[in-house]
């Protein structure tokens, strides 16, 4: 057994131990299991929310994106920043309502706000469909990391099975508390590793950032700024705007709002999280450093760039430390996704749509039983999913973004949007996302008469516009009926 493998194994065991230990002293009822009894302070809410950003996608995908595509990777940096600004005003009212009405999930929130269990079931289904590919992404990353850093001793399939077992064990037993404790370890590890790599690699190979970027600019002209076409400036603007709106709509991110002890936590975090976001910059630097040093990775393999460069640079034990950090970036978000998906199916699809009378205890029991089932589905897709999963992944973010108009409208003081409007808007938005993703449509194909600049606009904006339009029209129609009815009653 190599030293790299030993270190990875040690950290996996540590994650399992911390996850299981988190249960101690708490009676795991539904509110404890899913939202930690609404007792988390600034630090833990911060870590749960920040934990969303530092997943395997950013660790492997962020560096791979910089390595393979160049400038377009910059979009990852600002979108969450803008989302944090929105969160200052958006999250406190959501939190207040959730606390007063004992809401534990996002569909639960919308169903309660619009007094429509049907809407809750719809939102839960959209959420689960969006979450499963996200879980698969974490498992895939896990497989790549362990296989690479164990120098081939462990196959990706074996790594995925072990990872799934660890996560299932602690989520079943400790719920969200297990994730919170592991977030602490994970963030410390990733902070240390990414800062070190992002500073050391450019210095070691190029003698600093400026020489590195000069070298890249000379070797690949145009690589470091947005191109005229494709991933252009227009693409950047529309994608940043769209993903900023979708950011807090992920059900597990939305649910982490409920774990807070008081609402001021969100307002304070809005100032701190953008700074934390800057760690991503160092992930970019790693990818850029790799682009001239380990060239030739193509297609999906660009995600390996960080590890290829690390293998070429460091001793096995340090590759093990990087691998352990990578494993944690897969396990922690993976556990939160599992937790969220299980709560959604048990609380919002089962209790919301099938068995209205189910007690909290029954729902909690079902949620726990579902954790291994969902993990198995995730592993199945990871091992046999093939290309379909890529399409699903692209859809996930656009799917949850479709919930934004309904959430925003529900916060208005005098609510004009009806549940029918919210329902129809979400259905229409999701339908447009599905069609555009499956047909790989671009705005330029649909509207060839548009000026060249606008053709690169993210097509997700079309889905969101259709969504809002349908929401307004259907609300207007159902509005008049309810108004007419109440008038008839008063007569």
């Amino acid at each position, binding site marked *: 057994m190599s030293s790299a493998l030993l270190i990875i194994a040690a950290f996996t065991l540590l994650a399992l131990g911390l996850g299981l230990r988190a249960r101690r002293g708490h009676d795991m009822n539904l509110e404890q299991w899913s939202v930690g009894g609404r007792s*988390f302070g600034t*630090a833990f809410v911060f870590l749960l929310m920040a934990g969303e950003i530092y997943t395997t996608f950013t660790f492997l995908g962020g560096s791979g994106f910089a390595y393979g595509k160049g400038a377009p990777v910059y979009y990852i940096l600002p979108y969450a*920043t803008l989302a944090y600004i929105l969160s200052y005003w958006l999250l406190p009212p959501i939190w207040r309502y959730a606390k007063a009405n004992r809401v534990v999930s996002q569909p639960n929130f919308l169903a309660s706000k619009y007094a429509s269990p049907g809407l809750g079931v719809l939102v839960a289904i959209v959420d689960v469909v969006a979450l499963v590919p996200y879980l698969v992404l974490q498992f895939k990353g896990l497989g790549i990391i362990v296989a690479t850093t164990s120098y081939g001793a462990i196959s990706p399939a074996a790594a995925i099975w072990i990872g799934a077992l660890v996560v299932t064990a602690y989520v079943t037993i400790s719920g969200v508390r297990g994730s919170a404790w592991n977030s602490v370890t994970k963030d410390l590890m990733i902070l240390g590793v990414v800062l070190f790599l992002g500073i050391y690699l450019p210095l070691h190979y190029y003698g600093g950032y400026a020489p590195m*970027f000069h070298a890249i600019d000379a070797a690949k002209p145009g690589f*470091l700024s947005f191109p005229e076409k494709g991933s252009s400036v227009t693409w950047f*603007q529309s994608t940043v705007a769209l993903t900023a709106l979708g950011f807090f709509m992920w059900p597990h991110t939305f649910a982490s709002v409920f774990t807070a002890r008081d609402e001021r936590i969100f*307002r304070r975090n809005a*100032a701190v999280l953008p700074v934390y976001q800057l760690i991503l910059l160092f992930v970019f630097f790693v990818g850029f450093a790799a682009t001239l040093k380990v060239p030739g990775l193509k297609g999906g393999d660009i995600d390996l760039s960080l590890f290829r460069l690390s293998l070429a640079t460091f001793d096995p034990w340090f590759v093990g430390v990087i691998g352990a950090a990578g494993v944690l970036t897969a396990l922690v978000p993976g556990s939160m996704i599992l937790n969220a998906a299980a709560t959604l199916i048990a609380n919002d699809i089962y209790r919301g749509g099938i068995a209205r009378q189910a007690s909290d205890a029954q729902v909690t029991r079902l949620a726990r039983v579902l954790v291994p089932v969902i993990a198995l589905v995730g592993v199945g897709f990871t091992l046999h999913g093939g290309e379909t999963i890529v399409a699903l992944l692209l859809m996930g973010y656009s799917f949850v973004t479709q919930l934004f108009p309904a959430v925003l409208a529900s916060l208005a003081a005098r609510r004009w949007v009806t549940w029918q409007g919210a329902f129809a808007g979400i259905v229409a938005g999701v339908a447009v996302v599905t069609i555009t993703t499956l047909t790989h449509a671009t705005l330029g194909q649909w509207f060839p008469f548009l000026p060249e600049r606008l053709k690169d606009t993210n097509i997700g904006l079309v889905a969101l516009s259709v969504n809002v339009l349908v929401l307004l029209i259907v609300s207007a129609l159902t509005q008049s009926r309810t108004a007419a009815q109440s008038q008839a009653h008063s007569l």
Partner: protein
Amino acid sequence: MVLRLLAALPFIGILLGVPFVNRVEPLVLGMPLVLAWIVAWVVLTAVIMALVYRLDPANRTAASPGEEVRP
């Protein structure tokens, strides 16, 4: 209202500003100009939101007692 105007600045800087700085040279702090511009706005956002937090009367009432509950 002033607070919201303040908070709108990063949106303007990031979304509307980038077309004007989409260049590599000159490097700023070793980074391509467009990347440095985005980074500057992320840092400014933190400063602006800290200021908003300070100025917002909603945060001025006495903090609720009780210490961090450990999960």
